[in-house]
């Protein structure tokens, strides 16, 4: 019985890993210029026969985009799985603890004051700072011994406040173009990102993700309630701190380079939970791979569906995610009525 469960989990993990590889390759193949797989391979390996222009398209435009989709999708899926496990709520998602709202506000402040014209990476840097500050306030409000409920309440309050300040920036923006820039950024996109964006976000995402991956045992234990988890030797305060820090690092960095991309952190864990036999520790890996697959696929889709006027990535994930969210609510209601 135990072996079958492990086999099922490993088969799904392997399938998702393969999916990530395939979608990553497809992402490199997708774009305005029609390039063959061989040209892409040569461009990536620095082959002499490839023209400078093609090498530039691949290395500076498509590769960063594919890498960011992979990293950000994985960060969102992983942190969604960790938060759902910790809060024992399938409706939890990374934005719940205020990190996305804070990162968005930081980036909007950079756009509003035109900091990007002085320093090219002002938007993502301010985003990361905004995300960290928001989460620091949430952590301070929750208190060291705060329960998951206080964490949610503090997260909702800070998200609402960040949202209000973002609206204020829009309201006060000096001209319609500035407002448009903010609105477009908020919609979330991976277009026109460079390897510098990857270099900026990747360390935070990898570090944050690494922290979240260490929480499997604790997340399994809270399945039986906080008291049992504590009696099994789990340090609840430390776990909550690491969860918040890991999410802040990975999702803060993700939001600051890509804008707000909703629903991936909600959908990926939820779809993959049936393959984990109810063990939150197993969901971490699957949701990270699943999130990467989802975002890579969505980022390919926005380029294929609307090649001339690219649809924003956040718009597509919301269009797909909102009906899914409704379905979740209906299912939950059905369960309650049974």
């Amino acid at each position: 019985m135990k072996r079958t469960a492990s086999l099922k989990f490993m088969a799904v993990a392997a399938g998702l890993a393969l999916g990530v590889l395939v979608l990553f390759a497809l992402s490199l193949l997708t774009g305005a210029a029609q390039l063959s797989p061989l040209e892409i391979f040569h461009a990536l390996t620095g082959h002499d026969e490839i023209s400078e222009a093609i090498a530039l398209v691949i290395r500076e435009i498509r590769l960063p985009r594919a890498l960011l989709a992979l990293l950000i999708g994985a960060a969102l899926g992983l942190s969604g799985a960790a938060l759902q496990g910790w809060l024992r709520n399938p409706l939890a998602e990374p934005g719940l603890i205020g990190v996305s709202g804070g990162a968005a506000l930081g980036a909007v402040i950079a756009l509003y004051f035109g900091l990007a014209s002085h320093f090219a990476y002002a938007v993502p840097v301010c985003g990361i700072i905004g995300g960290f500050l928001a989460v620091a306030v949430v952590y301070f409000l929750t208190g060291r011994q705060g329960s998951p409920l206080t964490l949610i309440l503090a997260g909702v309050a800070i998200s609402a406040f960040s949202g209000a300040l973002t609206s204020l920036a829009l309201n006060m923006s000096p001209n319609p173009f500035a407002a448009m820039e903010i609105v477009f950024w908020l919609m979330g996109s991976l277009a026109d990102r460079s390897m510098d964006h990857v270099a900026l976000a990747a360390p935070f995402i990898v570090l944050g993700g690494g922290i979240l991956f260490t929480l499997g045992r604790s997340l399994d234990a809270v399945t039986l309630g906080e008291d049992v988890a504590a009696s099994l030797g789990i340090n609840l305060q430390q776990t909550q701190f690491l969860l918040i820090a890991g999410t802040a690092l990975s999702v803060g960095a993700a939001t600051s380079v890509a804008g707000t991309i909703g629903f991936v952190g909600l959908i990926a864990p939820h779809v993959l939970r049936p393959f984990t036999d109810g063990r939150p520790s197993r969901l971490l890996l699957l949701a990270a791979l699943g999130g990467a697959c989802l975002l890579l696929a969505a980022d390919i889709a926005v380029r294929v569906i609307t090649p001339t006027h690219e649809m924003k990535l956040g718009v597509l994930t919301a269009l797909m995610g909102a009906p899914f969210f409704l379905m979740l609510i209906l299912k939950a209601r059905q369960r309650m009525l049974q």
Partner: protein
Amino acid sequence: MIIEARNITTLIETRRILDDVSIASKAGKIIGLIGPNGAGKTTLIRVLAGLVKPDRGQVLLDGRPMDEITLTTRARQLAYLPQEHIVHWPISVYDLVAMGRLPYRHPLTGADRHGQQAVQEALQAMAIEHLAARPANQLSGGELSRVLLARALAQTPQVLLADEPTAGLDPAHKLQLLQHLSRISKTGLSVIIVLHDLTLAARFCDHLVLLKQGRLYDAGKPEAVLTPKALLDVYQITCHIDKAAGALVITPLAVEATVS
């Protein structure tokens, strides 16, 4: 190994939930913690489990203050079974029982030399091997209570603290669970258990601790503690006390004063 609470006082703001209470377990014996609702039984058992820090007094595990013992070491010696039966995800019974091995697993590799054997023994001890593949959140109350006890046993503890493990069970399942517990305690396990059913407490516990409004009212053998006077004083009930199968049978007859 024994667990001992000395002069425990806990406060919620200025209200005393526990007032200078002392209690100690005994290896191979079941200590029953009894008293009316609000007497402080759950708080006392949570203090013993290290989940609530007392405002005064200290808890000793095998003579060592609880604060000085690491969480993992404590989890290997002491298992706690809360009153609520919570299982949040559709985890299998096998995996749930195996959670009792968390304190033994290597933090990085997850290796646990005696893990499988301990889980198997716990499943056998509770006679739930046939349930191993079932999702735990689809079990009946009686099945789940045995599964959760098996999880505590998989911890291979020396002290077991259980808060009303028979709550919500029918008489057959109550008896069955306490018989399991009684058998396990004979292997040398120290058990402290909160019980509401006084007849079951009298029958299965070697020693009773009676709490009244956060204070220790009496402690001793069931026959010595469960007297008509004590039950009138603490529960404000008159009772008929009889003996059957060598143990006391307590039948409440009337409430003597307004029970708040």
